[in-house]
């Protein structure tokens, strides 16, 4: 079978059976429990055909669970699932796929060493004479890319592991389309994307709805929900607390629905003035994983009590910059000076002792050991810190108390240091990591995407802490792909493009659009997007 065939088949399918209702899917009275956790409680959701329906909610509010029910991964305890007006009871994703439901998980389902094409057709390979007919498949896939404007058709023979996350996400979508999905569920698709990629995704979504497909779009981000969705359903603690139409809703209203209280989007109210330089970076050059120079001559200073924000499209060297400063990546050339001493080639361990904290961009593979409990995780990075370790011997009681205090102060759910890191939601995982790093009482902080995939409540909290730290006179280097965040927090914004700081601007003086232009190197050579092929994903999130 080929992509187009299924497309048509699917289209017919919906037009014939679809007459039943104008709803592509209807979830009625869905309840799902895990032990005593009520993930979904009598949730209703009606998905208009050809529309985008956003599902908004904090971590653990039940979004993914609800969708896993629709996708046949979980069996609901109560309630009914209707697709094209017919009651369906999916036992496995296969049934859902056959019924035209596709789901793009938060953590992609791709076979890294296999090529894009092989991944797209996996399980539904067309064959000729026993051999996989890659040419036929290629044609179909290229057509799909054509129609919805995906760029992965240049990459069809590239192993997925070489694509950045944005491209990998496209592969996932193409995969669903190739299998003839009429209903597409996207679980936090934007959590790992750059602003540009997000825009691209929204265009794709528009194309899809235009072609009669129906989308469910999970996110924490109000702006995105309002921009991309027709309708928005908000979940809180497993309840559907409201469904509003996107253009009728206001940020504040939605935020309140989500969090159950008022959220203020305060601008920065800084008190102190920056002091002496803490980190001085001169002509820093770093070689990336693929052996190419990814940081190419960065100069800057981060002073006491200031937050230097680094904006940029992912893969332009921000990660390498951060990693080389904190001692996780060797420096090819240039120097890093910290409080007067040259730390260019210092090891991570010595820098930890010198008080340089690091919030890694990938909490799941770096920030936490997923199959350790929180107590053991509290020692991570503290191995050389008294009183946790004395003369090489660990004092687990001290560590335990430390873990307790982090969980308390940073309100990590569950409030149990015995919980496995793996069982925490990403948001709570992030809170724990942030807490642990801040408790180092550091003198400088390098924070990479500190609020990625974290819900509003936590974002607010983490931002406040960062400001506190700044006000206590710490030097903070903030790397983020959320321009909003950068602008809210930074005292100065450095824009990074192809390994260089193309400009350092005052957050007050620029708009997101200006930044977007700078980030895409527009002043250097007009409109040429940085070649996405050369950028690579920061893994872990898709593991």
């Amino acid at each position: 079978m080929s992509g187009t065939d299924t497309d048509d088949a699917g289209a017919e399918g919906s037009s014939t059976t679809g007459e039943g209702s104008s709803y592509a899917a209807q979830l009625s009275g869905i309840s799902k429990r895990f032990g005593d956790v009520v993930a979904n409680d009598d949730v209703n959701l009606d998905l208009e055909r050809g529309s985008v329906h956003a599902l908004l909610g904090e971590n653990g509010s039940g979004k993914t669970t609800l969708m896993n029910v629709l996708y046949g991964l979980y069996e609901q305890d109560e309630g009914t699932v209707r697709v094209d007006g017919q009651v369906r009871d999916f036992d496995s994703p296969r049934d859902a796929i056959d019924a035209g439901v596709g789901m793009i998980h938060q953590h992609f389902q791709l076979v890294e060493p296999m090529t894009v094409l092989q991944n797209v057709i996996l399980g539904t390979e067309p064959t000729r004479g026993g051999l996989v007919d890659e040419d036929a498949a290629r044609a179909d896939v290229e057509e799909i890319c054509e129609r919805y404007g995906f760029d992965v058709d240049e990459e069809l023979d590239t192993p997925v592991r070489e694509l950045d996350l944005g491209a990998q996400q496209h592969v996932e979508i193409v995969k669903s389309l190739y299998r003839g999905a009429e209903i597409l569920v996207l679980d936090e698709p934007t959590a790992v994307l750059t602003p540009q990629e997000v825009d691209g995704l929204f265009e794709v979504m528009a194309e899809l709805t235009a072609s009669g497909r129906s989308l469910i779009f999970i996110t924490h981000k109000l702006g995105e929900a309002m921009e991309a969705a027709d309708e928005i359903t908000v979940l809180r603690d497993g309840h559907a607390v409201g469904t509003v139409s996107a253009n009728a809703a206001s940020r504040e209203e939605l935020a309140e629905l989500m969090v159950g209280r008022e959220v203020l989007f305060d601008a920065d109210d800084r008190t102190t003035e920056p002091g002496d330089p803490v980190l001085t970076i001169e002509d820093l050059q770093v070689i990336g994983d693929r052996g190419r120079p990814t940081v190419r001559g960065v100069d800057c200073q981060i002073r006491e009590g200031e937050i230097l924000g680094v904006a940029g499209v992912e893969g332009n060297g921000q990660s390498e910059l951060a990693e080389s400063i904190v001692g996780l990546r060797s420096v090819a050339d240039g120097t890093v000076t910290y409080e007067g001493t040259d730390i260019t080639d210092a090891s991570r361990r010595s820098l930890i002792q010198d008080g340089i904290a690091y919030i890694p961009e990938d909490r799941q593979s770096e920030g936490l050991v997923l199959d350790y409990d929180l107590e053991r995780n509290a020692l991570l990075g503290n191995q050389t810190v008294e009183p946790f370790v004395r003369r090489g011997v660990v004092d687990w009681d001290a560590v335990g108390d430390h873990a307790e205090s982090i969980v308390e102060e940073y309100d990590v759910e569950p409030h149990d240091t015995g919980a496995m890191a793996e069982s925490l939601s990403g948001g709570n995982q992030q809170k724990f990591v942030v807490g642990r790093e801040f408790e180092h009482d550091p003198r400088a902080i390098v924070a990479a995407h500190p609020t990625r995939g974290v819900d509003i409540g936590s974002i607010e909290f983490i931002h406040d802490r960062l400001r506190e730290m700044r006000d206590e006179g710490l030097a903070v280097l903030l790397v983020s792909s959320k321009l909003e965040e950068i602008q809210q927090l930074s005292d100065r914004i450095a824009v990074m493009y192809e390994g260089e700081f193309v400009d350092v601007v005052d957050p007050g003086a620029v708009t997101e659009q200006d930044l977007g232009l700078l980030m895409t190197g527009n002043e250097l050579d007009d409109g040429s997007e940085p070649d996405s092929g050369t950028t690579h994903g920061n893994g872990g999130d898709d593991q």
Partner: protein
Amino acid sequence: MSSEDSERGSQSDDGERSTADVVSDAVYDNRWRLFGVVATLLGFVFVAALLTDVPLTKLVDIEFWLGLPYGDVFTVGFAERALQAAMPIALAAIGGLYAEKSGVFNIGLEGFMIFGAVNAAAVSWILAGGSASQLDLWIALVATVLLGLIYTAVFAVLTIRYKADQIVAGLAVWFLGLGFGPFTAVVMWGGVSSPPLSSLDTVTVPVLAEIPVLGRLLFDANPLLWVTIAIVLASYVVLYRTRYGYWIQAAGENPEALDTAGVSVRRVRYAAVMFSGAVAALAGGMLSIGIGNGFTGTGTTMVDGRGWIAIVAYLFGNYNPILTALASLLFGAAQMLRIQLGTIGVDLPSSLLEQFPYVTVIVVLTLVGATRVPSAVGESYESEE
């Protein structure tokens, strides 16, 4: 990284390329491996000489090297024997490769080979005693493969269905082979070894056999050579050109992805593991009645570590069936080279020379770098509720 490239290249190429191209590419991609092999050989003779009393001056003397009777060393017979030595290793390695690609580390190859060797001997004995006809032998080999399937089915159920630890289970298979293999012989023949048994005759293809060297190597050969070559090529095609091959790779790299694509990971793994047992059994049967003349069950049995070498061969061959076959050939050649040297009177202590293949592998790996093991190997997979 060359090894990666070669694998990637062979996966993503567009089907136009002939196997010859693939091989030549493979060779090019692995020029460092080849270089390493040669370098090690020289270094090795050197060290061996150091350890013994052969004067080093002799070794640094070009004349000595030029003077060596290479003609007597690299004979057609040498190549012939190298091929024969490589056959069982290559077969078992292909099996192990498939199992591991699908996510099951079959460390029990040695054991399955021992069972194969003794079963083949036993069946041919039951069929016709010491004087089995060619037909009997083929029947015996087929029976061996079937038995191999049954044995690995058990192994597969334990490792896949019951999530047995693949490494312990594999070691257990080895112990079982060392025990029940010879024991079968005791039951059959009253001793751990069989009496001499007849083996497959070499088959001569009329005209082709006349071709100078290749003729004698390929067309005046033991038919199992052709079987082996066929299996190697077939397994290459299946792995990189058919949907089953895709599934096997997916099962080993990201079973969840395969599962959500609606393919049963378990079935794929069962198939791959049982295939590995079948070819390992054939490799064993090859030793006892294919090219050899009966089963020897003393000590580590006549299989004598070939199953372990097979594992090294496919890791060394970077999971590419063709490279794996070449790696096996390297082992065969290295071993035969040692023998040739002895034959022409180069007198180095063979307890040292025997180490040559092993040291080669180490050196080459150091030059070439990593072999990437499939991500999900060793991990049992359970699809969600």
